[in-house]
């Protein structure tokens, strides 16, 4: 697998050499002068996505500067009144219009996906998206005509089924045999607090390997290896894979060319931006588990209903891909329920002692710091802030 992360360090060599040479050749800085008025261009963002029933096209114009507005909002100069048409290869087309209530510059068109190889049928002005076929976008504005073309990747039906996944034994696989017209893949790993994304020109079908197979060099060969330090048992996480066309891939992955003659990642003519296509292949929620092979692992239940600490908590002490947190190995993770809220536990063990951070999911509650120890078949935790002390037992 070749993985491409936007703007990686190791690709800086050429630009650095160029900059160094230019710096040596250049004499000294010339004081800045106010830029003349630019010949503004249309900026168009459009992606054809067979997995959704509505395609959204954003039309704006280039800005003179990116200075935020007084309220801190991003500068944005939408183009209203644009004529936005998407043409299919079989003589079909649909006009995107500004929906009621939508902000200016937003154009939408209803769509259906036709995957049986036929032309498909649809009500008037409903776009028929046929994976594998080439579509053309034409946007007419007062700044001129912007056009682009894209071919929709072909892939199997979106796999969104939730499942329990044992990191010690299971392998997450994707059927890539049915994927066509993809220039690359977009991968996203989501936890309750963060998301990691990566683009790859090619990927292996085995997306997530069991821990036993990820020792040594093999750790870098599986597509979600970039997130391996965030994959913990006991935590629910989402894994997404999307096949993307070459325009989409270029737009999000292309690097900066300081002396180039086009805008980074642009594949439109007459304007700049993106007209791409995607085929979502997988967006799967995995309830990650692992084998319970140490005393602290398992489901723990409080003797009484605590005020701040969890009433139940499932812990795993041997994360598949542990990382350093605060100078210690993170070796204890899990999920519990505290005050009616799901909390995720992250911590470590030292002998029979345990230290935990309990982070509420989807709640503004403060994280809980707790310490405790194993005593026989009991786990005793103490909330470092409230002083609440709770004894847990396995059932």
């Amino acid at each position, binding site marked *: 697998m070749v993985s491409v992360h936007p703007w990686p360090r190791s690709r800086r060599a*050429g630009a650095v050499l160029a900059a160094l040479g*230019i710096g040596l050749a250049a004499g000294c800085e010339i004081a800045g002068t106010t830029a003349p008025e630019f010949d503004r261009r249309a900026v168009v963002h459009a992606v054809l996505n067979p997995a959704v029933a509505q395609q959204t096209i954003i039309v704006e114009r280039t800005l003179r500067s990116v200075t935020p507005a007084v309220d801190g909002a991003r500068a944005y100069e939408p183009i209203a009144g644009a004529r936005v048409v998407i043409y299919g290869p079989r003589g079909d087309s649909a006009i995107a219009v500004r929906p009621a209530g939508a902000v200016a510059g937003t154009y939408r068109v209803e769509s259906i996906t036709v995957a049986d190889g036929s032309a498909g049928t649809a009500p008037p002005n409903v776009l028929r998206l046929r994976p594998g076929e080439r579509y053309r976008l034409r946007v007419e504005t007062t700044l001129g005509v912007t056009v682009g073309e894209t071919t929709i990747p072909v892939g199997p039906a979106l796999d969104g089924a939730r499942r329990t996944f044992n990191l010690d034994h299971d392998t997450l696989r994707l059927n890539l045999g049915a994927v066509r017209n993809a220039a690359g893949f977009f991968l996203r790993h989501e936890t309750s607090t963060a998301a990691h994304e990566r683009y790859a020109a090619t990927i292996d079908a085995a997306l997530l390997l069991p821990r036993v197979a990820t020792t040594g060099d093999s750790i870098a060969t599986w597509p979600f290896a970039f997130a391996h330090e965030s994959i913990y048992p006991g935590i629910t996480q989402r894994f997404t894979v999307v096949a993307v066309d070459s325009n989409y891939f270029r737009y999000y992955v*292309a690097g900066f060319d300081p002396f180039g003659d086009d805008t980074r990642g642009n594949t439109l003519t007459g304007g700049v931006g993106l007209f791409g296509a995607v085929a979502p292949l997988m967006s799967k929620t995995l309830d990650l588990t692992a084998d319970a092979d140490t005393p602290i692992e398992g489901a723990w239940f409080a003797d009484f209903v605590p005020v701040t600490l969890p009433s139940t908590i499932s812990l795993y002490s041997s994360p598949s891909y542990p990382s350093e947190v605060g100078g210690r190995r993170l070796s204890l993770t899990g999920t519990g329920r505290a005050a009616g809220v799901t909390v995720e536990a992250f911590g470590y063990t030292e002998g029979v002692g345990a230290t935990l951070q309990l982070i509420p999911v989807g709640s503004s509650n403060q994280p809980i710091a707790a310490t405790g120890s194993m005593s026989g078949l009991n786990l005793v935790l103490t909330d470092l802030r409230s002083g609440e002390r709770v004894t847990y037992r396995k059932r």
Partner: protein
Amino acid sequence: MSAGYEASTYRTSYREQIAIASGNNNDVGFPDPLATDGDTTLRQRPAMAGVFAEDLWKPNERWIVRGGVRGEYVSGAQWTGVSPRASVKFFATPRLAFTASGGRYSQWMRAMRNEDLPLRVFDLWLGSDRTIPVSTSTQLGLGVERWLSDSRFLRVEGYGKTYDHLAEPASTVDPRIRPSLLRYFDGRSYGVDVYLRQLEHDGFSGWVAYSYGVTTRERDGLSYWPAHDRRHNANVVGTYAPARSRWALGSHLGVATGTPYTGWAGVMNRWRYDPIRGSWSGPGSDGTEDVRGPRNGERFPFYWRLDLSAERRFEIGGTSIKPYLNLVNIFNRKNVFLYTLDSKVDPPLIKGASQMPFLPSFGLRMEW
């Protein structure tokens, strides 16, 4: 008449190794990510065989006619070309001559670079093969030469040239060369050169040269000025070194109109797309990007630079020692080398870096 043959073969090996994946997202990447599928190994063994014949014919004192033809075969490209050339010089008087020349030229080994990069660090030479066509050019020139005195002459030449299959990499900074990602341009240029030369007379010599030139490149129906397209260019060079003096003084004044560069059409919001929800995250959610204007649609300001030099000769024994002082860009003129756009302020600023500043240097030359 002379004739001959030429055979040449090259072995080139080009390999770059770039580690692509990285967890750092604050660095500079290269413009075409789809070219990043690993290391590149490019090995070529181009070979060329050619024959040529040339003849110089002087039917009388007024005419000099030179004709020739070159036949070439480039093995990698399986290209065969015939390139005729001819030139004529007619002396209307012993001090006035007219010239005309024309011919066809080809290039199958070229330095691969994007001309818009202001400075090159490395050159990569690529030969023509099945995917890289041979570049060709047809050229025509007309001129007149006139001796104004025994030590002074004037030459004026006009020219017109066409080019086919000029290759360049799409990126200016990406060191990876992939034949499949090369872009091919046609082009043309025309102009006139004026050259007035003063040979040494009473210690003074020098020349004045002026060029007017227009160069364009075309591809897919669009044309642009290449980065070296300088419309007007003049140089005045003078040296004063009397025979009886130990001093030699020199000066050079260069003036020119600006060369082209690619300007800006503003800044664009990049939008982040969620392929699962099918929604856009908002303006600038994927940052912002400078939007380039038409390729080389702008020109740098007027250029001028004055250089002075002085040299003193000492004779010690049989050795001639010449200490010298050179003063480059004596007025410290800030001729623009490149521009950058600062769009994070309102109004946006065009900033720049200058070419060589005032630069004194000195040295010593010894002859024995």
